[in-house]
C-alpha cells in the first residue's frame, strides 16, 4: 500500500461501515502455486484435441492475445469522450462490416456478450418488428434438434415455442412445417448447418414458406465455421442471425466465457438494432448513435465484449478472404475424414456427407458401455470428450467436431483411440465403465452434488 501523506477523509457514518472484511490471507507465492497447480488439472485446446461438437474448439492464436493487452485497448474507459476512442470504434465498425461481408447480412451489432445473449436480442427484434407492423403473433418454431438456448430465449420474451420434427435423414420435415405455419407464427429459428452437422437441403423452401406467411427466419450461427467464404447466410433466406466469435472466429472460450454474440440483420430489421450503434461520418470519424427511436434499447452495460471483438478482428485481418474460406473447407474436410474412418466402428444414424461436425450413436456398443463411458475413457487417451447426448433426437449422441486446426496425424490418433475403446468395450467393459483412470480426479459424483448442494467453502 503506498505510504501517501493524505489529510483526513470525508467521514462516513459508522452505521454504514463494516468492522473488517472476511477474505483469506495467503502469501503471493502460495497464490501463484495454488492456481498454477489448479491449471494443471485443466484441459484446454493447447493441451490436446478438443472435438466438442457445436463448440468449435479451434486453436486460439497467440497473436490475438498479445495485441488485446495493449494499453490503448485494455485500459480504455468506455465513457471517454468520443475523440479519445476513435481506434476502438474503428475496430467495432470494421469488424461489423467484415461480418457483413462474410454472411451477406446488411448490418451487425456487436453488443451481445454471448451467443445466447445474441439470440435473446434477436428475439426482442422479432418481437419489436411485429409490434411495429401491428401484428400480434405468439409462436416461434424451433426444430427438435435445436440448442436449448433457442426455446429459453424465446420464452423470456413471452413467445410460445413449438417444435418442428426432423425427417429420418436430418432435414426439417417440410410437410409438418406447412401444417404448423399460420398467422400466429412470428418466426422460426434454425441452426445452419443444423446441430446434426448437416446442411438442410430445403433451406430455401423453408424460407419461402415462412416469408409467404409473413414470418421471419432466424439463423443460429453457432455452426458458421462450416460455410465461411463458401455460402452466405443471407443468400439462404435468413433475416436475422447471431455469430459466436468464440467459436468461428477463434477467440478463446476462457473456461466458459467471455465470448461474444454479435447479431446481423437484413435491411428491414436494421432500425430495431440495440443502441448504441457505431456510425462513421463522411470525414472518416466514428461516433456512437443512441438516438434511434425504433431500437429495442440497450442490452449491455456498455458496448459488448470489446476485447473479444478485437481478437476476432485480428483473426479476420490475418486470414483474409482466402484464409476464411480455407478454414471452413478444412473444417469440413477434417470432419468428413473422421466420419469416413469412424463409421466403420460406430453406428452412424444418418449416413450423409457432413459439414463441420457429425453425430455418432452408442447403438451396438457391447456390454452396456454407454456414450458417457466412451466420453470418460477418451480422456485417458489425451483427448477431450466430444459433446454427448446432444442433439436429443439421436439416442446416445456422440457429436464430434474436429475443426480445421487439427492436423491429419492428430485425427488419425483420435481414430485409433476411438477404435481401441470399441475393442475395450468388448474385452474389458468394467474398466471402460470406471474410466477415466489417469485424470486428476476419478469419475465425479454429480448426483450427490445436486442432492445436497454445497456451493461455497464453509470452515
Amino acid at each position, binding site marked *: 500500500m503506498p505510504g*501517501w*501523506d493524505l*489529510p483526513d*477523509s*470525508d467521514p*462516513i457514518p459508522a452505521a454504514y461501515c*463494516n468492522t473488517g*472484511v472476511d*477474505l483469506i490471507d495467503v502469501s503471493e507465492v502460495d497464490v501463484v502455486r495454488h492456481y498454477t497447480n489448479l*491449471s494443471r*488439472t485443466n484441459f484446454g*485446446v493447447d*493441451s490436446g484435441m478438443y472435438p466438442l461438437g457445436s463448440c468449435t*474448439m*479451434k486453436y486460439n492464436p497467440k497473436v490475438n492475445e498479445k*495485441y488485446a493487452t495493449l*494499453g490503448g485497448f485494455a485500459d*480504455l474507459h468506455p*465513457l*471517454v469522450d468520443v475523440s*479519445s476512442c*476513435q481506434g*476502438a470504434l*474503428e475496430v467495432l465498425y470494421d469488424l461489423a462490416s467484415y461480418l457483413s461481408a462474410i454472411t451477406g447480412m446488411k448490418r451487425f451489432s456487436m453488443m451481445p456478450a*454471448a451467443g*445466447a*445473449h445474441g439470440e435473446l436480442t434477436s428475439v426482442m427484434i422479432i418481437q419489436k418488428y411485429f409490434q411495429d407492423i401491428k401484428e400480434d403473433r405468439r409462436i416461434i418454431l424451433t426444430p427438435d434438434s435445436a440448442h*436449448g438456448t433457442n*426455446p429459453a430465449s424465446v420464452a*423470456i420474451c413471452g413467445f410460445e415455442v413449438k417444435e418442428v420434427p426432423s425427417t429420418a435423414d436430418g432435414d426439417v420435415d417440410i410437410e409438418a412445417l406447412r401444417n404448423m405455419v399460420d398467422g400466429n407464427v412470428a418466426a422460426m429459428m434454425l441452426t445452419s448447418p443444423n446441430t446434426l452437422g448437416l*446442411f438442410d437441403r430445403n433451406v430455401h423452401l423453408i424460407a419461402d414458406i415462412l416469408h409467404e406467411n409473413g414470418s421471419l427466419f432466424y439463423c443460429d450461427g453457432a455452426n458458421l465455421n462450416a*460455410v465461411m467464404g463458401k*455460402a452466405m447466410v443471407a443468400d*439462404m433466406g435468413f433475416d436475422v442471425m447471431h455469430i459466436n466469435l468464440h467459436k468461428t472466429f477463434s477467440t478463446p472460450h476462457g*473456461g466458459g*466465457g*467471455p465470448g461474444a454474440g454479435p447479431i446481423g440483420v437484413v435491411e428491414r430489421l436494421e432500425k430495431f438494432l440495440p443502441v448504441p450503434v457505431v456510425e462513421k461520418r463522411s470525414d472518416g470519424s466514428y461516433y456512437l448513435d443512441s438516438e434511434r427511436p425504433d431500437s429495442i*434499447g*440497450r442490452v*449491455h*452495460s*456498455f458496448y459488448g465484449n470489446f476485447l473479444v471483438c478485437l481478437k476476432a478482428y485480428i483473426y479476420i485481418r*490475418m486470414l483474409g478472404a*482466402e*484464409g476464411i474460406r480455407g478454414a471452413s473447407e478444412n473444417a*469440413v474436410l477434417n470432419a*468428413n*475424414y473422421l466420419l469416413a*474412418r469412424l463409421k466403420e466402428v460406430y453406428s452412424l444414424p444418418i449416413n450423409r*456427407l457432413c459439414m463441420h461436425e457429425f453425430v455418432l450413436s452408442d447403438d451396438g456398443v457391447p456390454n452396456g458401455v454407454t456414450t458417457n463411458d466412451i466420453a*470418460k475413457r477418451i*480422456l485417458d487417451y489425451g483427448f*477431450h*470428450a466430444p459433446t454427448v447426448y*446432444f442433439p436429443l433426437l439421436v439416442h446416445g449422441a456422440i457429436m464430434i467436431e474436429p475443426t*480445421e*486446426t487439427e492436423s*491429419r496425424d492428430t485425427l488419425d490418433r483420435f481414430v485409433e483411440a476411438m477404435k481401441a475403446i470399441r475393442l475395450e468395450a468388448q474385452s474389458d467393459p468394467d474398466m471402460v465403465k470406471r474410466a477415466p483412470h489417469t485424470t486428476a480426479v476419478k469419475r465425479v459424483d454429480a448426483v450427490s*452434488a445436486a442432492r445436497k448442494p454445497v*456451493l461455497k467453502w464453509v470452515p
Partner: protein
Amino acid sequence: MDYISNTPGDIEEMLKVIGVKSIDDLFADIPASVGLNKKTALPAPLTEIEAGDLLTEIAGRNCVLKSFIGAGVYSHYIPAVVDHLASRSEFYTAYTPYQPEVSQGTLTAIFEFQTLICRLTGMDITNASMYDGATSLAEAVFMAVRSGNRNAVIVSDTVHPHYRQVLDTYSRAGGIEVRTLKSKNGAVTAGDIDMLMDDAVSAVVVQNPNFFGCCEDLVEIADAAHSGKAYLITVVTEPMSLGILKSPGEQGADIVCGEGQSFGNPAGFGGPLLGILAAKDSFLRKMPGRLVGKTTDADGTEAYVLTLQTREQHIRRDRATSNICTNQGLCALRSVIYMTLLGNTLRELADLNHRLASYLKRRLVEMGFTPVFERPFFNEFVLSFDDVERVRSALRNDCYQFGVPLGRYYPEHENSLLLCATEMNSPADIDRLVSVIEQTL
C-alpha cells in the same frame, strides 16, 4: 496466416478416404440456388508483423491517460500475478467445464469465487457469474418476479442509467412493469418507496454507493421494501466499496447484483466485464446461470462439478430459469485471484480510495467547484461548475479524462460532473490536475 496444417498431399489422400473428388463435393448439400464460393470482400491478409504495426497504430488513436472517470468501470491496479496466472492456456483455452475430470482447475476457481463473493456481499449463494452488471440486474429482477409472483419492480433513479436502460429493454420484452423512484438530494427516501408500493411489486432496486457516488440508507430502504412484502435488490457497481462499507446482506438485501470488473479486470472499453449475482438461500432453485458444487470422485477424493443443472436451458429448455449458457469464466478467475492476493488488505485499499477521492473533492471545492449532494461517498462524487465544458475540453487537450458529464443522463444536472479517484490517481496526480485547471481558468 491460417493455422491449418493439411498439405495438398494430405487433402488429396483424405478426399480419397472420404470417397469424393474435390473439396466442393463436400458442400454438395448446399443448394445451387444459395450459390457457392462467391467472393468475400475482406482486406488482404496480414503477416504477424504487419498486424502488430496496424494494431499498435489503432491503439494509439485511443487515449487512456489520466482518467478521473468511474461510473460503472473503475481503474484499479492489476497485480502482475493476475495477468500471469490468467494467461495460463490450460485456463483460457478450455470450454465450460462439462467434463469435471479434466476441469477441476476451472471448477475449483469458480467455487472459490462463489465463496468470496458470498462473504463480501453477505449473501448465502452466488452463481458462477453473468455477462455484466446491467444484465445481472435484469436477471435479478426476473428472478425476483418469478419468486414473488408479482409483476412490477420499483427502481431508483440513482441506479446506473445504463443498467436501467438494459432493465427497461428486458422488461418490455418480458412484460414486467418498472416504476421509477425519484431520488431526493442524491439518495432514496424510504417514504417515497411507500408511495409506489402495492401488492403488484416484487422488488425494490437501489444501488449502493449509488450512481452519484452517494451512500444510501439501505437499512431504511430494506424495511420499506419488506413491509410491502417485496424483496430488496441491491446493485453494486464498485465492489471495492465493500472493503469498508457494510455488506448489503448485513443491511437487509435479499439479492445483490452488479459488476465485479474492479477486481483484477481491465476497463477494456467496457467489456468483457464480470456480472455478479448473489442471493439468499431461498432463491437457490430460481437462480439463473452456472453453479459449482462440492462433491467427491469414485475414490472419495474431494472434487467439484457443475450442479443443479435442471434449472438450466440445456435441460429445461423453454421452462429454464434463464437462457444464459456461459458465464464470464476467465473474468471470474481473474477476480478470485485478485481477491485471494489482496486478502484482508482489501480494507486498506478501499480506505485509500476513499481518502484519495476525499482529497480530490477538497482540492476542487477549494477552486470553486460546488458539491451537488451532501451525502457520504466512497470514491465518486458530483461537483458542479459554471463552465464545465470549457474546463473539460482544455483538460482533454492535456490528455485528461475529467469526469462524466451528468447532463447526458440527468438533464437537471447539466453543469455537473461525476468524478472518481482510485489508487491509480496519486496525490501528486491530483495536485497536477488542479494546477492544469488553474491555468485554464
